């Protein structure tokens, strides 16, 4: 009565086959990540030192450190965040909490998706036209950061909107039925319960922004500039562009240097992602309903 039939055995074989296939694909996915990290650590690790992190490049970028690029990347990211987070969160709040479901809203949503699909080099050219030339910011941190901000805006909007939508509708209904306005509902209930997701989105944006090269290379990032930027209208070096430059444009760079730059850059990104994950786990643990 309970013996396996031929059909059962065939099913089990197919089942095992697909399990193996999917497992193999997953390994293929992890492999490049592990290889990249491994190679960077082995070949870039020796380059890392206090001096490397905290001194400017010397000898035509074939020696010395990366301080101006490191500081420049921080500047670019911070200014980009200041520009994009308020706009992105406000737009997401409008789309999620206020906008009626009509043709205009759908058109806006479509625009956001399309904005996310625009290649970064196109954003770079837009940044040159709009911020460098039209608004006369020149090639500066401001122009580069605004270009980055425009590019990452869809990420902020989508992450924020998804996070807002994890707050159950029942809470909103409870508020509205007590006569609370949309804004009172947002301030007292929706935002406090979605802030973890919004911050996660912001941190992901940071990690994304810090690695971008194309949007900044025409708008504010300098080839070589051994000083630290003093304000948003200065040009600056940046980690991503510096990596590109010393890997391809400068002769006689010792081999460990580009790997060192890449290692620092990827460590920044991974640290950000790690913070984002830890934060989410912490806030999710506190949230109960």
């Amino acid at each position, binding site marked *: 009565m309970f013996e396996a039939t031929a059909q059962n055995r065939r099913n089990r074989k197919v089942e095992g086959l697909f399990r193996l296939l999917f497992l193999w694909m997953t390994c293929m996915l992890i492999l490049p990540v592990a290889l990249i990290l491994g190679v960077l650590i082995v070949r870039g690790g020796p380059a890392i030192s206090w001096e490397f992190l905290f001194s400017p490049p010397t000898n035509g970028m074939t020696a010395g450190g990366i301080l101006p690029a490191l500081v420049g990347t921080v500047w670019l990211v911070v200014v980009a965040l200041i520009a994009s987070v308020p706009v992105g969160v406000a737009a997401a709040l409008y789309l999620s909490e206020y906008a009626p479901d009509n043709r205009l809203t759908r058109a806006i949503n479509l625009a956001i998706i399309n904005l996310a699909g625009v290649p970064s080099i196109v954003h770079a050219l837009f940044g040159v036209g709009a911020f460098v030339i039209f608004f006369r910011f020149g090639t500066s941190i401001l122009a580069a950061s605004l270009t980055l901000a425009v590019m990452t805006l869809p990420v902020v909007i989508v992450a924020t909107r998804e996070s807002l939508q994890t707050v159950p509708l*029942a809470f909103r*209904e409870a*508020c*509205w*039925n*007590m*006569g609370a306005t949309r804004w009172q509902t947002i301030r*007292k*209930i929706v935002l406090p319960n979605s802030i973890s997701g919004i911050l996660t989105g912001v941190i992901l944006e940071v990690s994304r922004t810090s690695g971008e090269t194309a949007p900044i290379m025409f708008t504010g990032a300098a080839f070589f500039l051994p000083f630290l930027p003093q304000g948003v209208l200065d040009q600056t070096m940046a980690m991503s562009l510096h990596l590109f430059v010393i890997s391809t444009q400068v002769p006689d760079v010792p081999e460990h240097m580009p790997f060192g730059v890449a290692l620092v850059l990827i460590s920044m990104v991974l640290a950000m992602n790690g913070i984002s994950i830890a934060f989410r786990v912490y806030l999710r643990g506190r949230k109960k*309903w």
Partner: protein
Amino acid sequence: MSVAEPSTPSAAGASAAILVEKLNLWYGDFQALFDVDLRVRAGAITSLIGPSGCGKTTLLRSVNRINERLGYVRTTGSIRLWGLDVLDPSVELAQLRKQVGMVFQRPNPLPLSVRDNVLFGTRVHLPGGKPPTRAEAGRIVEEALREVLLWDELKDSLDRRGTELSLEQQQKLCIARLLPVKPRLLLMDEPCSALDPAGTEAVEELIWKLRGDYTILIVTHNMAQARRASEECVFMLLGEMIEHSDTASMFLNPANEQTAAYIEGRYG
């Protein structure tokens, strides 16, 4: 807590809290209510019964105009609360919802502490023009929780999240949350259907206790509940009001053939 007399008694008589006349309602092209006339006595518990889709929840949700949020709802006719037409465009919805509290099928306490749940209404409406002081807040919380028979259970755990309570406590908290802004009418949409039998009994008892101080309109699927916990009963079918009488006589001696059939469980 007692309810002040209506400031403008209507010509139809001060005893009617809700007076619905010739109410028709459409969701898009679908007509959900047909010429509904209803008069709800002030201070009484009136239950709306009828099979699923008969329009009882729609009627309930028209009274505080929460239906309108859907955007494709159209109504004709009038709904008067204490003589005032609530469908009038000049009605301030925030004020309407302050006067008309609503309790939902699934308890929906806010993800805040028990204390903040009870104080939410006063913070939204600021009855004194500013948020209550600490002392006032304490008194408001105690009064509201006492009224819903939760004070003794929860007085030492006012900082617990409302969403962590048992379902019965959650539903009582949802009722307590309405009281500090002194509503005059409570709408309840199957308030016990998510609760176990003991919880149902406790919440029914509470509703019965609130009778007199508040006018209560309650939608229920549960015939026994309508019979136990209401004074007047309204039977609806396919968007029409079929019969309205006091509960005892409806269950003993229904005037309408369809009412009799429904009550006896021949359909529903």
